[in-house]
């Protein structure tokens, strides 16, 4: 038992953090800097990070959930506007179905964002949400089609529109009536266990993103508290401010400790056990991220409530990462079902 990063993982953490930090936005204005976003997207593609969950030739992913979580955390910390979790989850799902990954594809979610959309027929009859898709270009989103005891993949394709809360990632909405294409050469049906394991990866990546967001927003806020002066002194000298930031630091550490375990477990433990660990991590991270981002807005004072202060970029991104695969309320409800028994009359 040694829960520390291996030397390779530590190196990846440093590299990812450096790259995301250099190319991520420093100001709200940077969000509209197409050139910066382009460079970031090319860098992420060039490193091979989008292929971490591709098939290694023997049905296993090229890299573990730990490596994927390391990247997700670094990108969250830098509020980097580049698709990562979306295409990574699509590749993981395709691998489990024995299909070749489709470049740029993501997974289409049901409107509640908790799970992959399940469809039937040749066109959708409800909206599909393609989460963390590239900003431009036609949308391709994997959806599930029930088939006997399992599911096979189909591809919803269309032109999406995106106007979500998160200013760094896109949620394209595909309207009802979007055509469904079959996915070629799926060698196996997706089982319940496959979907549990895939859901765990989703909980891992969204939790890691929030851990990164908390680190990033706390760094910005601590610096601000050291510089901003009121009553002739830095506001960071006031205990009222210090205690808010100290609590935030504890939440970051707790969320990180909870999140590394399912990142490891997703490839090492039975799906049900890993899923429980994922739900614990997500419930903790969702509550923590909300509090830490709200603390950041509060410590920034009036300016923290203006569009041009970057902390709402973290808060908005945390709201999407929280809802995606379900927030703390959803995770607690699922833990209640699995651990406390099902109450009659509730689903």
């Amino acid at each position, binding site marked *: *038992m040694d829960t520390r990063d291996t030397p390779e993982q530590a190196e990846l953490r440093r590299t990812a953090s450096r790259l995301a930090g250099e190319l991520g936005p420093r100001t709200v204005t940077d969000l509209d800097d197409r050139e910066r976003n382009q460079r970031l997207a090319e860098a992420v593609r060039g490193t091979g990070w989008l292929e971490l969950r591709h098939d290694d030739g023997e049905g296993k992913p090229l890299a573990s959930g730990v490596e994927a979580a390391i990247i997700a955390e670094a990108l969250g910390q830098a509020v980097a506007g580049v698709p990562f979790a979306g295409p990574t989850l699509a590749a993981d799902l395709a691998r489990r179905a024995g299909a070749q990954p489709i470049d740029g594809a993501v997974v289409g979610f049901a409107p509640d964002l908790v799970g992959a959309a399940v469809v039937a027929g040749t066109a959708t009859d409800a909206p599909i949400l393609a989460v963390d898709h590239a900003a431009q270009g036609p949308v391709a989103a994997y959806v599930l089609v029930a088939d006997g005891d399992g599911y096979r993949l189909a591809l919803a394709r269309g032109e999406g529109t995106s106007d979500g809360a998160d200013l760094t990632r896109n949620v394209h909405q595909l309207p009802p009536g979007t055509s469904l294409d079959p996915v070629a050469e799926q060698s196996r049906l997706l089982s319940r266990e496959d979907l549990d394991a895939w859901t765990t990866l989703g909980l891992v990546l969204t939790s890691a993103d929030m851990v990164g967001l908390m680190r990033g927003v706390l760094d910005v806020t601590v610096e601000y508290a050291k510089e901003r002066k009121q009553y002739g002194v830095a506001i960071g000298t006031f205990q009222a401010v210090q205690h808010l930031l100290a609590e935030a630091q504890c939440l970051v550490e707790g969320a990180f400790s909870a999140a590394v375990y399912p990142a490891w477990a997703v490839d090492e433990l039975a799906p049900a056990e890993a899923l429980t660990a994922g739900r614990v991590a997500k419930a903790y991270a969702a509550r923590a991220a909300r509090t830490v981002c709200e603390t950041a807005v509060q410590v920034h004072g009036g300016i923290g409530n203006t569009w041009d202060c970057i902390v709402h970029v973290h808060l908005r991104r945390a709201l999407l990462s929280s809802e995606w695969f379900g927030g703390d309320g959803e995770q607690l409800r699922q*833990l209640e079902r699995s651990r406390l*028994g099902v109450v009659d009359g509730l689903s």
Partner: protein
Amino acid sequence: MDFRDSPEEADFRKRLRAWIADNNPGLPASSTDDEYWARQAEWHTALYDAGFFGLSWPKRFGGHELPTVFDVILDDEIAAAGAPPRPSLGYLVQGITTHGSEAIQDRFLPGLISGRERWCQGFSEPDAGSDLAALRTTATRDGDEYVLQGHKIWTSYSDVADWCFLLARTDPGVPKHKGLSAFAVPMAQPGIEQYPLRMINGITKEFGQVVFDGARVSAANMIGEPGEGWRIAMTIVSHEREPGEVGYVSRYAKTVKDLEKTLRADPGAYRSDQREAVAWAYVQAEMLRLHVRRRLSERLDGPDHGPGGSIDKILMTWVEQSVGAATLSAAGSRAVVDGDEVGLKIYLYSRAQSVMGGTSQIQKNIIATRILGLPVT
């Protein structure tokens, strides 16, 4: 990163599990009953004699020199079996090994670790709580001895202790942090009066007040150098704040497990807010279990006496108080109809966690200034 047991760890876990199954004394939850505090010493010596305590400490003091993560396994198996937590004295061991002379270490560590000699900690005073360095107990040199005068409070297990790890002022002429020294004081002597404290959940065996009025301690029993007391105290409290050092994580896991069992027996009898309180307590206890794994892994290459223990202490406090809130919630109206209700007692006991070992306010001061680097006025 690997959360799995190595072959040696798996073998240890198997032996430990079998031993606990045969030797679990089945004490009540520690926070609710005086019987637990009365019989805790038997559990300590049984655990030690079976080779399951002092796992990472030096062999010459009775330890086993195993990697720090073996304590994770100990906490896991104790929690799984619902056995009492491991004795929480790692912080005293850290204090003595870091600051005590070889003679002091050889004299005191074996008895401390084996449980054959019981210890209490005389730091806090009625007028020196968070401002510990303001303490007024004096140790005045008299030949080869020091004479003690003063009043200590929150002295856990003082009534059964053989020794007190005492912090006293030896030099009133220097600034308050510099005039303190630490001693191993024998408790069985005239000039020591004890007064138990009754806590808000009714227990009387855990905390006491100790008045020193002319008690004596040999100068050879000074731990560290004259004037080193403050540094020693800071080493000790920094580790007292670590759940990896105190082993409380198994207590939380056991309480949550018992709660889950109760709700599972009749899920329809509980409201959604009660179910959610229990699920959240599970999330918190799991977080701490994993946090302790991480913190003890970080120590595989040696201990760290830094301020990180303050983060651990806040996390541990939030966990204990979430668990306490869940026991109260699940007890529902029973908690107010029956003053002996276990859920009520666990809840009331949990309120002390944000005070003992340094208040949450003090921990936040330390985190803000020493970890986040915020300025001090």
